[in-house]
């Protein structure tokens, strides 16, 4: 009665919704989001008897209500996006890098180590930050390259390998926390360099400098809300990586090689590409960017290290990268939405004194609908008149 068939895939390497015209694809996704809002609304009403529109309003206010909230949203968005962009080359190569969580964590560890042991040194702030960023990238790259080498040389299963590397990263963090704990015995590292703020990403224009400017001038306000914000640098770094990765994947020879290896290793070999080299190179890049995510989390937000530093973002980023079909600009939209949901959920939980679980239900419903919509984008459903054997 009903045929389900995969839509014919015309566009292999462009990262577009396969088969369906891409605008139709986005239309389907939009409808899915709207439908999910309606269903969540019904569930909100059924459980809490609250007006769903009011609940959505509280969510929006909780995320964008003040400039500071908006910046916190941008900061978290930047971090999730950074990790997602880091995953893009690996996933496009069909290398299932489940290890972003660990790569972020070791990047964070390297950053924290620099902050703790070089915080008292005479290295000026900017070179120190650059050093920290490179240390984080090196650590993340090392975490990414190990499974890549094994995959390239011995064809090991990268899904399990990268997953297991996460546990090593977590255990490594647990090993260092008691060594770096502050104060002794507390088993937390605490805010590193809380007084000196050494190794913290600080605003380009300090609050002191802003307070000396003409307070009524619109330029002062503009400065305060852009370069005067410490998270501005996080956003700037990630924006650069996002644009760079887009062109790397879509416009460079490396990007083309990644796509070919992802579609068919045999084709790649036939085209005289060095598959092993491509795998190792791409995973080094992937790990390095995820490691930089750890730098942003530690130097640019938390200023501490714990096993929760990556906070599951390494796994959420997989959803982002996958939904965006490795298009880094689409990733911006999807991470923006996911971070909005996460922050909005906390806002409604506190406003209506609900448990966080209720808001997680809403997030879950929205994700389910979006992921479900991929089915309709990838597959065609044909109703045939023949009965009996057709199904």
């Amino acid at each position, binding site marked *: 009665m009903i045929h389900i068939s995969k839509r014919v895939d015309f566009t292999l390497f462009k990262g577009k919704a396969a088969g369906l015209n891409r605008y139709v694809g986005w239309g389907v996704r939009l409808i899915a989001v709207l439908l999910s809002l309606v269903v969540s609304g019904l569930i909100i009403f059924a459980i809490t008897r609250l007006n769903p529109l009011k609940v959505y309003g509280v969510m929006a206010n909780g995320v964008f*209500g*003040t*400039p*500071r*909230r908006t910046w*916190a949203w941008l*900061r978290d968005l930047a971090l999730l996006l950074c990790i997602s962009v880091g995953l893009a080359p690996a996933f496009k190569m069909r290398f299932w890098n489940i290890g972003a969580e660990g790569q972020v964590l070791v990047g964070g560890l390297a950053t924290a180590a620099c*902050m*703790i*042991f070089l*915080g*008292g040194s005479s290295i000026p702030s900017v070179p120190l930050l650059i050093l920290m960023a490179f240390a984080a990238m090196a650590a993340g790259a090392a975490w990414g390259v190990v499974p890549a080498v094994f995959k390239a040389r011995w064809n090991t299963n990268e899904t399990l390998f990268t997953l297991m590397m996460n546990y090593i990263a977590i255990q490594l963090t647990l090993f260092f926390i*008691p060594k*770096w*704990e*502050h*104060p*002794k*015995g*507390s*088993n*937390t590292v*605490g*805010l*590193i*360099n*809380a*007084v*000196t703020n050494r190794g913290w990403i600080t605003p380009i224009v300090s609050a002191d400098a802003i307070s000396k400017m003409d307070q009524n001038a*619109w330029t002062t*306000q503009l400065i305060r*809300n852009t370069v005067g914000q410490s998270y501005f640098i996080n956003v700037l770094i990630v924006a650069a990586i996002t644009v760079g990765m887009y062109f790397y994947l879509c416009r460079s020879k490396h990007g083309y090689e990644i796509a070919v290896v992802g579609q068919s290793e045999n084709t790649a070999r036939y085209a005289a590409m060095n598959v092993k080299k491509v795998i190792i190179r791409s995973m080094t890049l992937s790990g390095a960017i995820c490691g930089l995510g750890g730098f942003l989390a530690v130097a640019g*937000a*938390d*200023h*501490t290290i*714990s096993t*929760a*530093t990556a*906070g599951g973002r390494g796994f959420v980023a997989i959803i982002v990268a996958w939904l965006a079909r490795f298009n880094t600009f689409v990733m911006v939209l999807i991470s923006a939405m996911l971070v909005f949901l996460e922050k909005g959920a*906390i806002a409604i*939980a*506190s406003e209506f*004194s609900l*448990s*966080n679980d209720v808001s997680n239900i809403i997030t879950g419903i929205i994700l389910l609908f979006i992921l479900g919509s991929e089915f309709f984008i990838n597959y065609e459903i044909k109703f045939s008149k023949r009965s009996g054997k057709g199904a």
Partner: protein
Amino acid sequence: MKKFLAIALCLVMVLALCACKTGNNGKDNNDKIKVGVILVGDENEGYTAAHIEGFKEAMKNVGISEDQVTWKYVIHENAECYDTASDLVEAGCKIIFSNSYGHQSYMVQAAQENPGVVFCPATGDTANVCGLPNVVNLFPYTYESRYVSGVVAGMKLKELMDNGTVTDPYIGYVGAYPYAEVVSGYTAFFLGIRSIVPEAHMDVMYTSSWFDLNKENETAKALMARGCVIIGQHADSTGAPSAVEAALAEGKVAYSVGYNIDMLKVAPTAALTSAQNNWSVLYTNVLRDFLDGKTMQHDYTAGYNDNGVMISALGSSCAPGTAEKVEEVIAGIKAGTLHVFDINTFTVGGQKMESYVFDFSTMNADYTAVQYEGQKIETISDGYFHESVYRSAPYFDLRIDGITELTDTSN
């Protein structure tokens, strides 16, 4: 431009309210004050549940209604805590509490930026040294209730030895971390036992977690396997008491003393009692001083004298005469005739401690320089160690004779 206007307005409002505070004349302003509470868990988690209960009680005591309080549940000990605290400030909260130690540094960060708001990280230890007038720490005299729960265990141990069931008065303690709060707690517990059974000795094993049901369960089993007959704990789950209950049911001689919550539900025969904190007293005192417009102290504490601490109902297995003995000990503590850390009751390295100077400074990240300069204070005078007097958070970190730490995760 709207946003900028909003910031400007917020600033004006904050400043205006700051100006109001000095002229705050008590109850009249109570219904306008907004309060923020940052919690590491929610009501499903024992430690936070005790704080929520205590805070609601305190709200009743000082006349603050539910709609004046913004609760923030499950706030992690990272930038999320700083975000939440800043958010509460923007929402107009004038006093903000947090309940986990790890929240403290983020609260201090927010306190630096918002001098007009009072930040109260409970169980924290830097209010006194960080140089900010708007940071307040609160910590009850938990060591007192630990001591009393030790007395309960000591009575049981004495009974077991008198009737010949037990010959070696061997105690086990399931600790979270080798942290001063834990050291102070198990030492008080041990001294309580030794006040009844002088020849008692104790082993401490760490779980490296404040809450880990399985690990606490296994640690309790390991201690019982070594021959421990009383299992105390400074960890938040019911893991240890349920292990002891199971062992008792199998014919082993073992009893449990819990922490935070009444353990009789999970260990109806093995649980003797639990040392508990009554957070409502501290929250009430802080809120009352704040509402009355008083200068805030840096440290708020409360012991038996102020109902700040207690032990849970005695279990059916307790030795006869326990209740009377407990009454007597509590009366001694209240009257000031009994001191938990009396220097005549313990030795360190075979020596009686006549003097112990504690440096309250905190160090920087790699422990090479002082971060916050604190005083160096003689903590022993009048024949006893003055715990939680010079700072609310415990600082008794002496390792006394008779107690062995079996695992040390800090090395």
